[in-house]
């Protein structure tokens, strides 16, 4: 079985008789339902050549079943190639005199070329592929026919459970309650049946608020930060041309504010679009009605623009014509990297508002189930180390995408190759995954998973044997009995045989925030995804994995020997702390699948110890690449490695960024400096920096971020928050949007991002 089609070897076992019978049954069933009686079938063709641009061409017998084209290679060592119809985006056929060539362009960006002898067979195969790849009823799709043949220990449908999540939330605050207001999906079809809302708000108020929000998507909690601020998402308010208001919506939002009693509303539409939306009954929160909230916009563009960009970047990546001179210009003009950057920008901004200013942030666009989710989920990855583990990440996708009502069925109906009329497809989820890839690229040690997981998730979101990404909303999933009838992708990912494949061997848990650089220089083209046919294996990771295997082996040997020597108890050996947590981690991982919870606890204890012990030692990061003794050239940047994205000063400045100079002083310098400095960079800064500069040592600053419980840091937090609050109050009293530093920032930001289209 070739893994390059993304179908794992487990599926091979499906090819036994019973399974095949089931597929054939499905096939006939489908044909019937489509009442395509005249369809002359070609269930089997021999002597087909298959080539995917990557491996050698393979010849074999092509079989068409209800959900797959299966190529059984003549050379049995090459195994089978399974192509799910759902994955096929477009079929390009060139029919010759005695044979036909089909190019199957897949949604996961693979291209597979089939050369089929016999014109009629070729036409039939192409026709079947076209018909079956355009079935839209999810209940007819493969997940409903697929039975797990792999061993698994836990059911992926149970990975995320709102009750567990709520329990964890309750341990931090009692401000929230679990509401059943949407139990019959009557209030909002795209929300799950249980929702976390502020305790002081009763269900009737929520119902009223829901009526005031598009599609009933009233503001809900997505993330509660340890400092009491939270990230909230909703759809746009139905203000309309008459400037309607809803007091319950206002109350609901105000009840969601954190200890600072202030909040930001991030509107991810352009200013113009938000204003125009009023005419169509939508709109935005006005400053009068929401005086505690400060609104600013950052244009992330709507989903269909993103699809066009995807089409362009895929086109550029597939260009094998050799005229690669303009590659980077083409990449730029696709605009794709711009969307990635913008989404990361917005997420950083949200994370910073929450973490540094302790203001709650409400994010919404129009419907609030596309890029809104990108922003809120990315911000959580930045802020919450749990989301950087495999389980945490999958739970995040459950919570922020699947349960939050991202319309997967619509968005992934077609890929970039399809010539079908657009029905609302868009690579929103892909953009989110690529943003995570960029984070992973910048922080290769901070994620438990590798980019393989992201590539696979993307593929499964388009076509899968698992039910996870089927349907648009939870309501449909419940009605379709998805959880009972299909298997969760998480079940597969977490199964003992598969799980290790995704583990990042470099992973080293760190509990602080990760602040990515959003400069375009820092963003990488995702070769693994866009040019899968020519991407070399990741040897570095493989090497590290083999090192880890060696560790386990050696550890085992040590234990064995120790037992025989008889004077060192095994436990002690397993608890060796050789500088780092590796040995422990390795031994944990071995039993990781079984008592996950126990291990998690252990891990946490260990990490905490580690943080306490080695907290400041993390500053070693700054010495990379380590300068030579006699040549402290690199000391130049020593003091400011832990930087916030300087690129966007409006995001705040990390104190270590500007050790003793304020950005506002910079224009006094030479010519180039003036241009470099963004004059509008946050006006709250002066106070902040002054209070912090009294602490002086960057070491302490760092502590402030990583060990929030220490006395030192709470002091400084208070100090720094006070002046900025005063400043913000002044802003409010003015009530002038023009003077609003953030708004002007976002404008200047918008200028930056003029659409390349």
């Amino acid at each position, binding site marked *: 079985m070739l893994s390059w089609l993304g179908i794992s070897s487990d599926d091979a076992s499906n090819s036994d008789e019973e399974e095949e019978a089931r597929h054939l049954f499905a096939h006939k069933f489908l044909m019937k339902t489509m009442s395509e009686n005249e369809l002359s079938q070609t269930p089997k063709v021999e002597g087909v050549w298959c080539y995917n641009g990557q491996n050698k061409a393979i010849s074999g017998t092509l079989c068409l079943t209800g959900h797959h084209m299966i190529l059984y290679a003549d050379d049995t060592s090459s195994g089978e190639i399974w192509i799910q119809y759902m994955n096929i985006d477009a079929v390009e056929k060139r029919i010759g005199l005695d044979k036909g060539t089909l190019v199957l362009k897949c949604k996961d960006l693979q291209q597979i070329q089939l050369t089929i002898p016999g014109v009629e067979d070729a036409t039939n195969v192409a026709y079947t592929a076209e018909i079956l790849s355009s079935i839209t009823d999810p209940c007819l799709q493969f997940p409903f026919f697929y039975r797990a043949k792999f061993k698994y220990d836990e059911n992926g449908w149970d990975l995320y459970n709102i009750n567990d999540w709520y329990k964890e939330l309750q341990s931090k605050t009692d401000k929230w309650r679990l509401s059943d207001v949407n139990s019959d999906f009557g209030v909002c079809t795209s929300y799950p049946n249980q929702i976390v809302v502020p305790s002081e708000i009763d269900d009737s108020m929520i119902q009223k608020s829901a009526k005031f929000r598009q599609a009933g998507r009233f503001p809900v909690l997505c993330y509660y930060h340890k400092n009491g601020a939270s990230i909230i998402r909703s759809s746009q308010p139905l203000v309309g041309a008459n400037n309607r208001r809803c007091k319950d919506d206002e109350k609901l939002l105000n009840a969601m504010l954190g200890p600072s009693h202030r909040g930001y509303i991030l509107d991810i539409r352009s200013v113009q679009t938000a204003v125009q939306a009023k005419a169509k009954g939508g709109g935005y929160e006005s400053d009068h009605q929401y005086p505690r909230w400060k609104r600013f916009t950052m244009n992330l563009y709507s989903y269909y623009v993103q699809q066009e960009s995807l089409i362009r970047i895929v086109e550029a990546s597939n260009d094998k014509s050799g005229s690669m001179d303009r*590659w*980077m210009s083409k990449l730029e003009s696709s605009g794709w990297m711009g969307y990635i950057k913008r989404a990361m920008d917005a997420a950083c901004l949200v994370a910073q508002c929450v973490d540094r200013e302790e203001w709650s942030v409400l994010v919404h666009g129009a419907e609030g189930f596309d890029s809104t989710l990108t922003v809120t989920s990315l911000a959580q990855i930045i802020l919450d180390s749990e989301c950087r583990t495999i389980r945490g990440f999958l739970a995040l996708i459950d919570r922020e995408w699947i349960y939050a009502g991202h319309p997967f069925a619509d968005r992934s109906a077609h890929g970039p190759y399809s010539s079908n009329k657009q029905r609302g497809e868009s690579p929103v989820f892909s953009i989110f995954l690529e943003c995570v890839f960029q984070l992973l690229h*910048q922080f290769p040690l901070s994620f438990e998973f590798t980019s393989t997981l992201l590539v696979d998730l993307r593929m499964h979101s388009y076509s899968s044997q698992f039910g996870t990404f089927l349907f648009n909303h939870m309501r449909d999933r419940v009605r379709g009995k998805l959880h009972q009838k299909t298997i969760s992708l998480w079940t597969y990912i977490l199964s003992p045989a598969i799980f290790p494949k995704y583990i990042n061997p470099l992973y080293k848990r760190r509990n602080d925030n990760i602040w990515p650089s959003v400069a375009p220089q*820092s963003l990488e083209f995702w070769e693994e995804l866009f040019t899968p046919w020519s991407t070399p294996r990741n040897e570095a990771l493989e090497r*590290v994995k083999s090192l880890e295997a060696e560790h386990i082996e050696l550890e085992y040997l040590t234990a064995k020997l120790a037992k025989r020597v008889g004077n060192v108890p095994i436990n002690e050996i397993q608890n060796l702390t050789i500088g780092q947590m590796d040995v422990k981690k390795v031994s944990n991982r071995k039993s990781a699948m079984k008592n996950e919870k126990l291990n998690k606890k252990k891990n946490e204890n260990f990490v905490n110890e580690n943080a306490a012990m080695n907290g400041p030692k993390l500053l070693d990061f700054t010495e990379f*690449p*380590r300068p030579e003794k006699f040549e402290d050239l690199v000391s130049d940047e020593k003091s400011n490695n832990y930087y916030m994205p300087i690129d966007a000063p409006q995001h705040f400045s990390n104190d270590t960024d500007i050790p003793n100079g*304020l950005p506002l002083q910079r224009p006094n*310098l030479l010519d180039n400096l003036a241009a470099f400095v963004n004059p509008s960079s946050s006006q709250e800064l002066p106070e902040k920096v002054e209070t912090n500069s009294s602490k002086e040592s960057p070491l302490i600053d760092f502590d402030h971020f990583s060990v929030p419980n220490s006395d030192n840091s709470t002091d400084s937090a208070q100090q720094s928050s006070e002046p900025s609050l005063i400043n913000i109050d002044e802003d409010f009293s003015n009530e002038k949007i023009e003077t609003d530093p953030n708004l002007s920032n976002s404008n200047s930001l918008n200028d930056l991002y003029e659409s390349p289209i």
Partner: protein
Amino acid sequence: MDKTAEESKDSGAMKDIPPDAVPLLSGEEVKAYLEQDVTYLCLYTGTKVGKMAVTNYKLHFQSGGKQKDSVPFILEVPLCTISKVEKVGGVTSSSKAVDGRNPYGLEITCKDLRVLRFALRHDAHYLRRKMFEKLQEYCFPASNKLPYFAFNYREQYPDSSNGWSLYSVKSEFQRQGLPVEGWRYTKANMINSKYELCDTYPQLLVVPAAANDEHLNQVVQFRSRGRIPVLSWIHPESQATITRCSQPLIGISNKRSRDDERYVQMILDANPHAHKLLIFDARPQANAVANMARGGGYEKNEQYQNAEVIFCDIHNIHVMRESLRKLQDICFLPQLSQDKHWLSSLDQTQWIHHIKVILAAATRIAHEIESAKASVLVHCSDGWDRTAQLTSMSMIMLDSYYRTLEGFQVLIEKEWLSFGHKFAQRIGHGDKNHSDAERSPVFLQFIDCVWQMTQQFPTAFEFNEHFLISVLDHLYSCLFGTFLYNCDKERKNKDIRKKTISLWSMINLHRDDYLNALYVSTYNHHVLLPASSMRHLDLWIGYYGRWNPRMKSQEPVAERHKELLQVRDYLKKQVEELERELAIKQEKEKAVAAAVPNPTVSITNH
């Protein structure tokens, strides 16, 4: 301030500076010192106020003063890295005023792509002039008839790591499998021992065995600057070779040389597998043709019947210099407005495109040698720039030895230093003329290509990125004698082996710092052919962007790799210790068992 000015007025020897003020290398002396009120204007992190010193080796700046307890900010630049020192502000250039203020200070442009700006007090005209003069004097020793600092550097390195004894022609060719039938060394004291055959070649050459000394003397006449085809690398099994030379002197009149033609045929004949000699002309064809007007040219089919000329389309040093200048502009002075056009401006620099062309040509050479067992002759115009790039890159691909730390040093010594890449001219060591048209980042491109390969084959190279960056830093620093001067002959005349220290002495002493933790030996004896499509090449942010904090790597992957190795070594040690203990224990038990024979005690060795 006035006081300091007066004080320093008379102190030519700078005796009155505090002893710990500037950390000095042995042999280093402070030449100028400003104790306070110097402001370093960093583009990214704001201003720093502190003291500045100029020694005969470096420019040293240290912030401090008011906040004593904070970590001082230290900036050190080897003076030879500086390509240009300019005064900014003052009476002459009031137009540069920013925001009504007139900045007054020094602007220092470096060869490693940095631009440093220091602001001084307005009333300190004298001090600035003095600082400026000292900088002018010691930054450009070659223009001022001063010795490079390498000749003053007195650091002692142990003989065991002496870099000068690293490379010898004979042992290197022995490693490659010489002596073989088709090739011979030139005889000592006969050919080129006094550089009379070719003054930019090393003394000892490897030439086809069929060619006698008289023949060589004839061929010399027909090759530009006497750089005749000589052996660079030979395939240990197929005896396919890489030879290098300069262009033939064909000229407009279509001159030909039977001797040269015969000589080329001899190179071909030395390889039993090949029927055709592939001549890789590194230039674009148009340039090769244009060179005929200047007396050069390329091997034409009519005269060289068993040869095929392949043009590699690598542009000349001027194009490369311009490309780097553009790259510097977008890397070091990124303004926010440029961000949205980052990719297309990077595209416009053409830098990665040039890297791609070099890599592609080298890959083709390696491929021809390995797969077709063909012999290859590489040349450009003079055969010391692009030729060196191509031969050394293809040798790295072909021979895993050159991917080790030692082998890479040998490769640089051999292909670049001994065969006369004109480092002094291309870098402009200590030369005042910063706009010299002879300067070009040829060697930098080579290192960049190597880096691209390390990215594609992260486990195949014994050295790490830090090593490559260190080599580049010392390419400019003139702390070591390695890269000084243009060719072997000059270096011999200046006696650098005795009077200076080799860079490799330092590198090999601190070997551990330069090792790639991921290196495995699986790739030994493997030929590596990198993908040279633009999609797979990256800008080397770790080098070009290292002064720009927002282009930096955020997490130390290399450190983590090392850590994993340390854990492994620790575990290995544990195992060894335990095994030893076990052995001792078993010995004891055996002794006990022997003393008290008991049938129930049986010792198994599993």
